[in-house]
């Protein structure tokens, strides 16, 4: 691919909301106040979705929890924090201040109220303060849903559509509907928002979860005295779920409004994955909570460099680029074949691949007894990728395509047209 001669332009227009780059802070603790958001904009964030406004609540103390993995803190994160606990007057005053000082950055105000009248009032006040857009919080899976808001709305397409309709009736700025992942299929919920008139959707909100259990006190976490409750799961671990839901909407023929992607984005690479699956802007929360606003510098650089490398002049050119290749299992070529190859030069002899293949796959990687470099029984290797996944040495194990002489044939073609499938491997 030819490299672009011009410097890539990161300017983003997501559902009519313009920002200097596609990186927005998600509605969450990092967007709790004007002072924070101004620092975030100084760091380079293109937009911020203000911490959800509604009737201010009282939070519990002890409200975050994390799941760790092999010494890495918080690969998954959850919270039982609710919407803003600050007076609305203060919030609106700060929104106005931010917009005055940062006219080119996007300030989207997240909202969650109950009645039609309340929606009308809070939308009016948000626009008066200078909001560039609104995000309807139909996703919060804890606390607020017990009060008939948040995911209680997002899980009911008819309610979603009706309230979205109210918001569109009152709003003059673009309206995004934030969707909850706590549903079986995301598509009907995205379509409901669209029917309600939404200019775009943002997803995913957090996933209903229990982050852990204090095994000595016999209480789930985060522990609030002697009790806990389910919270919203987020962070790096949820990215695959979020990518799927974004992709599922993006490829649906009946869905054609912009998406602001959210869920486990830590860096430019994650952000690009969301964009390739159909996100116009990308929202980040957990990684900022863990590492601070400063991470955006690398995100901007990484995206710019990536776009230059692929010859993308504007972000529009990459948004949705991977959507056409997100298909159904029945469309996959069953005659496509790869096998694992080990580079003996870079192999360090840990033999993690041996155990992984032996216990977790198809028993086709064997120690030789002569050197620590294992051998692959290529007649048995099904090409599952597990050895490559466990190998600690970058590039040591590669999955190599095999020309087995068979014409591509999908399951659908096999069932429908009798297409010939290659003999199974490892199935004995």
């Amino acid at each position, binding site marked *: 691919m030819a490299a672009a001669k011009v410097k890539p332009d990161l300017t983003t227009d997501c559902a009519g909301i313009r920002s200097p780059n596609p990186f927005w802070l998600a509605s969450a603790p990092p967007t709790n106040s004007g002072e924070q958001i101004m620092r975030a904009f100084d760091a380079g964030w293109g937009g911020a979705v203000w911490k959800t406004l509604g009737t201010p609540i009282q939070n519990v103390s002890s409200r975050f929890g994390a799941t760790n993995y*092999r*010494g*890495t803190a918080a690969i998954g994160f959850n919270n039982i924090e609710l919407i803003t606990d600050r007076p609305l007057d203060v919030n609106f005053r700060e929104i106005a201040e931010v917009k005055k000082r940062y006219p080119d950055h996007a300030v989207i105000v997240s909202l969650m109220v109950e009645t039609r009248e309340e929606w009308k009032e809070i939308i009016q006040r948000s626009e008066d303060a200078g909001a560039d857009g609104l995000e309807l919080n139909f996703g919060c899976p804890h606390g607020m849903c017990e009060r008939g808001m948040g995911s209680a709305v997002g899980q009911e397409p008819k309610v979603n559509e009706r309230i979205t309709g109210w918001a569109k009736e009152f709003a003059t700025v673009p309206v995004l509907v934030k969707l909850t992942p706590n549903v079986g299929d995301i598509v009907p919920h995205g379509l409901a928002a669209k029917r309600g008139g939404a200019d775009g959707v943002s997803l995913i909100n957090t996933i209903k979860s229990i982050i852990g259990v204090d095994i000595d006190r016999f209480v789930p976490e985060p522990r609030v005295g002697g009790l806990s409750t389910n919270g919203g799961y987020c962070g790096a671990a949820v990215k695959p779920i979020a990518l799927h839901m974004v992709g599922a909407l993006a490829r649906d023929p009946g869905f054609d409004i912009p998406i602001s992607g959210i869920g486990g984005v830590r860096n430019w690479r994650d952000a690009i994955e969301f964009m390739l699956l159909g996100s116009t802007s990308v929202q980040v929360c957990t990684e900022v909570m863990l590492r601070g606003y400063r991470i955006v510098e690398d995100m901007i650089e990484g995206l710019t460099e990536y776009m230059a490398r692929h010859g993308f002049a504007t972000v529009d050119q990459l948004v949705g680029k991977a959507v056409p290749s997100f298909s159904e299992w029945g469309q996959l070529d069953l005659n496509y074949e790869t096998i694992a190859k080990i580079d003996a030069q870079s*192999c*360090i*002899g*840990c*033999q*993690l691949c*041996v*155990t992984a293949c032996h216990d977790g796959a198809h028993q086709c990687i064997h*120690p030789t007894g002569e050197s*620590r470099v294992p051998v692959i029984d290529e007649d048995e290797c099904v090409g599952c990728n597990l050895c490559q996944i466990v190998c*600690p*040495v970058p590039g040591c194990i590669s999955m190599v395509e095999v020309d087995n002489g068979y014409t591509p044939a999908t399951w659908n073609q096999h069932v429908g047209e009798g297409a010939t499938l290659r003999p199974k491997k490892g199935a004995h």
Partner: protein
Amino acid sequence: MIRPPSARSEAVFDDFKPAYTTGQALAEANRCLYCSDAPCIQACPTGIDIPEFIRKIATDNVKGSARTIFEANILGMSCARVCPVEVLCVGDCVYNHMGVPPIQIGKLQRYSTDVAYAEGWTFFEAGEDTGKRVALVGAGPASLACAHALRRMGHGCTIFEKRAVVGGLNTTGVAPYKMKADRSQDEVDWVLSIGGVELKTGVEVGRDVTFADLERDFDAVFVGFGLGPDGWLPDCEGIAGIHGAVDFIERFKLGEVDLDGVERALVIGGGNTAVDAVRELKGLGVPRVAMVYRGTEAGMSGYAHEWQAAKLENIEAIWQTQPTGFARGDDGLAVDAVKLDEKKRPIEGSAHRLPADLVLLAIGQGKLGELIAGLDGVRLDRGRLVVDAHGYTGRPGYYAGGDAANGGKEVVNAAAEGKAAARAIDAWLAADNSLRSQKTEGAV
């Protein structure tokens, strides 16, 4: 058994490899790849399942981690400190092949075993009493490991130790920046807490009791008496200011040595005792310390990583030099020496004199095999007891391990050999054999 006194010159030393904090241990443990059929295990003479004990640190199962270590090596606490891990487990960590710093296995092992000691965890109980009794000669690592294993099998044990202190070289010889005498004593206490091990200190087998006595009173014998006294060069014994290195080390580990006025010390030798000795003298405050070795740096038998550490402490080396005589004058000692060529032959006209206030000889230790030489079936090779892979000496009922049999290796070798011998002794006793039922031919 007498405990090491509290006033010991070795107290001035700090740990060369400080203990991990919990945070450090977790960070390091989480780096371990948990290799399959891991090379580090194969490099360990006692075969500790290293990836497993490290994983257990990472999962906050420190008790299980310690159990994994001690199941393989009951002396895992001292080995964590004194093992030359650079040439054993750590040296074989696969990360070395990736250009990534290898896992600090010794420090992780120290972490788990120290926690176990601090918490008072013990993992093993004596087996049901078999009525058999085994005599163990010497109270060093080999005998301790052997006795502990024998106790798990239910055999009674009596350890004969000629010194007042126990623990062998772990107590009297280990470099104090690795482990001090009181920590070795902790280990002895912990190992013997299994119960049923009688300690007879101040009793030298071959002098105070005979092997014939042992054959009369015991069903089997394990010989773990280690090595003999320091070797001496001709015509220097008795000159003030010249000491055997092993003897000198024992003196400052078990008591106090006076190095006032010692400005320059020479250590003769190029093995691990010599490298220990130069670092120890430096640490004890001698301003100028040099190692005098007949060969080159590349040819020295002391571990390269240890010598590297010595160099960083500004310790000098005088390579390819052979002492030819020692003299004591008014202004201290003088060592007459010649330079040697590549084949360690004296170079003509190279005679010179090296000034010194203190000279330690680290040219090897004598072997104690003569103590047992009179017994039929026991074979010696240059003073070392010849044994098979199970520690069997060739005389029924007699087994051996540790330095007495291997000629002078690591604590971890002694631990492995003691344990292997215990298994062999158990099998021999299980087949209804006993020294007491045998004709005692040639016993001395």
